[in-house]
C-alpha cells in the first residue's frame, strides 16, 4: 500500500480530485468499457482485414486503405459529403439561430409559434419527404411555379444531378428544429442585465447582438459546430430516403447524392465488404477528429463561458 502513494508524484489533493472526477465520470466509463470499447476495437481490426460478415476476417494489412486512394466513388462521395457540410450545415446553423432569435421575443402566443416551428422535426420522414418530392416536382411543384412566376429558371430538382444536393439542402432548412430549440434555451440563459447595461451605454440592436448575444451563446455555437461537423460527415437518412422515395437507385442521378456514409453502408451491407467499410469509417474518424481538434484549439479565442473569469 505504502508504495503506491508518493511514487505517482501526485499530491493527495490532486489524487482526491482525480478520484472524485472519475467517480462522476463512472457512468460513462462503465458504458465505454462495456458497450463501446469492443465494437470500436473490432472495427479497427476489421479495417485491416477482408471480412464478409460471415467467415472469419483475413488479415490484409493496409490493402483496404490503399484501395481507397484508387476508388473514385469513395472520393466523390467524400466530395458530396463535404459539399453538404459546407453549403448545407453552415447556412442552416445561421438560419436556426435566426429563427431562435425570432422566437425569443416577448410576443403573445409564443408557445404556439414555438410548437409550429418545431413541427417539421417531428413529422416522420416518409411523410415529409413525400411532400418535398411534390413541392420540388419539376413541372407541377410549388417551388418551380414560384420561380417561374418571377421569371427564374425552373430546374429539374430531383433528376438533374446538379440540383439534387441543393434540393437536399433546401429540405434541410425545414429540419433545423432541434438546433433552434437548443439556441432558444441558450438565449434564455443570457442575463438580461447585460442588455440593460448596454442600452444605458446607447448600444444599438446590432451592437447588442454582436457584443452580447453572440459571445453569450458561443458555448452553444461551439457545441453545434462540433455536433454539426460530426453529423454532416455521417449524413445518411435524408439522402437515402430521398433517392428511395423518388424511385431512384441509391446515390441518385449520376451518384450525385452518394454520400460517404451511404457508400460505406453499401459496401458493408450490400457488397459485404465490411473490412473496406471499416477502413472507410476510420478514415472518416480521423478527418472528423482532426477538424474537431482544430475547432477545440481555436475555441479559447471565441467561446466564452459564464463560469470563467
Amino acid at each position: 500500500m505504502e508504495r503506491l502513494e508518493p511514487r505517482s508524484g501526485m499530491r493527495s489533493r490532486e489524487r482526491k480530485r482525480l478520484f472524485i472526477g472519475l467517480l462522476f465520470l463512472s457512468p460513462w466509463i462503465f458504458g465505454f468499457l462495456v458497450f463501446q470499447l469492443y465494437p470500436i476495437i473490432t472495427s479497427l481490426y476489421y479495417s485491416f482485414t477482408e471480412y464478409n460478415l460471415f467467415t472469419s476476417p483475413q488479415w490484409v494489412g493496409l490493402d483496404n486503405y490503399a484501395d481507397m486512394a484508387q476508388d473514385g466513388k469513395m472520393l466523390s462521395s467524400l466530395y458530396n459529403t463535404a459539399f453538404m457540410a459546407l453549403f448545407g450545415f453552415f447556412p442552416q446553423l445561421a438560419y436556426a439561430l435566426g429563427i431562435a432569435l425570432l422566437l425569443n421575443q416577448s410576443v403573445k402566443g409564443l408557445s404556439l409559434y414555438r410548437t409550429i416551428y418545431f413541427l417539421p422535426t417531428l413529422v416522420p420522414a416518409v411523410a415529409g419527404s413525400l411532400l418535398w418530392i411534390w413541392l420540388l416536382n419539376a413541372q407541377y411543384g410549388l417551388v418551380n411555379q414560384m420561380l417561374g412566376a418571377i421569371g427564374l429558371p425552373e430546374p429539374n430538382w430531383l433528376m438533374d444531378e446538379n440540383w439534387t444536393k441543393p434540393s437536399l439542402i433546401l429540405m434541410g432548412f425545414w429540419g433545423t428544429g432541434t438546433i433552434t430549440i437548443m439556441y432558444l434555451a441558450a438565449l434564455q440563459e443570457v442575463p438580461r442585465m447585460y442588455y440593460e447595461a448596454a442600452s444605458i451605454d446607447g448600444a444599438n440592436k446590432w451592437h447588442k447582438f454582436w457584443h452580447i448575444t453572440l459571445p453569450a451563446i458561443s458555448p452553444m455555437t461551439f457545441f453545434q459546430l462540433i455536433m454539426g461537423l460530426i453529423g454532416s460527415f455521417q449524413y445518411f437518412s435524408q439522402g437515402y430516403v430521398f433517392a428511395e422515395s423518388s424511385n431512384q437507385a441509391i446515390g441518385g442521378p449520376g451518384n450525385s447524392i452518394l454520400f460517404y456514409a451511404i457508400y460505406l453502408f453499401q459496401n458493408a451491407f450490400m457488397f459485404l465488404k465490411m473490412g473496406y467499410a471499416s477502413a472507410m469509417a476510420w478514415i472518416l474518424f480521423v478527418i472528423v477528429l482532426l477538424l474537431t481538434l482544430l475547432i477545440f484549439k481555436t475555441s479559447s479565442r471565441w467561446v466564452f463561458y459564464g463560469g470563467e473569469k
Partner: protein
Amino acid sequence: MNTASIGRKILPHLLLIIVGLLFLAPFAWLLLTTFKTEDEIFVIPIQWIPKEWIWDNYVNAVSMIPFIKYTWNTVVIALMSVAGVVLLSPLVAYGFSRIQFKGRNLLFILMLSTLMLPMQVTMIPLYVVFNKVNLLNSNWPLVLSAWFGTGMAYNVFLIRQFFNGIPMELTESAKIDGASEFRIYTQIVLPLAKPALLTIGLFTFLAAWGDFQGALIYLNDQETWTLSIGLKQFIRENGVAWGPLMAAATLFTIPIIILYFFVQKKFIEGITITGLK
C-alpha cells in the same frame, strides 16, 4: 398610440406568421391527406383540401396494426431511456465541467470521438455484445444504448456547455463552506440546469420514439414491436397504403407534439427558477 409603435407590435407577429406557415405546411399537409381518398392523395398538381372528408384511413390504420400495444411498448422504452439519461448524463457532465483533474480533456475528447465512428461498422459488434450477455429480444439493448451509447456523449457535451455557463462564484462559495462536490451538484448546479435537462430528456424521448433500425434489430417478437416498426407495415413491396400510412403517421406524431408543447412551456419556467436574470 402612433403608427410606428403599432408597427413594432404587429411586425414581429407578421413575420412569425409568414415563416410559421412554411413550417406548418408539412404537418398540415399530412393531416389533410389523412382525410382524402387514395384518388385524391396523388393528384398533380398537389391538392391541399380534400373534396370529400373521410375517416376510413384512421379506421384502417388502427385495425391494420395493434396500435395501442405498439404505443405502449414505445412509451415504455422511451420513458426508460429518458429516466436513465436524465439521471446519468448530468453526473458525467459535472465531472467534465467542474472538477479539475489530470487527463480530463483527454477523456473528454475520447468521449466525443466515440461519436465520430459511423454506427454502420459498430452495429454488428454491438449486437454480438448484447447477444453474449443474452439480452437480445428484450428492451434492454435499446434502453442501455440510450443510456450508455453514443447518445450519452451527445447529452454530456450539451449539458457540460450549460454547466460551464454557471458562474464559478456560485459553486466556489459553497465549497468554501465545506459542501461536498455531490452536494454542490445536486443542490446548486442541477437545479440551475433544468432547461438543459428538459432538452436532453425531450431529445432522448424523440429519438426512442422514432428509432426504427434499433428496434427492428433487437426486437424479435411481434408482441414487443414499437410504433416505428408498425409504420413500416404500411409500406409493402408492391406499393404503399398511403392513406392509412398517413393516418398512422399522424397518430404517431400527435403525442410527441403535445409532449413538445408542454416541455417548451417549461423552458420559460425553468429560467425564472434559476433567478439569474
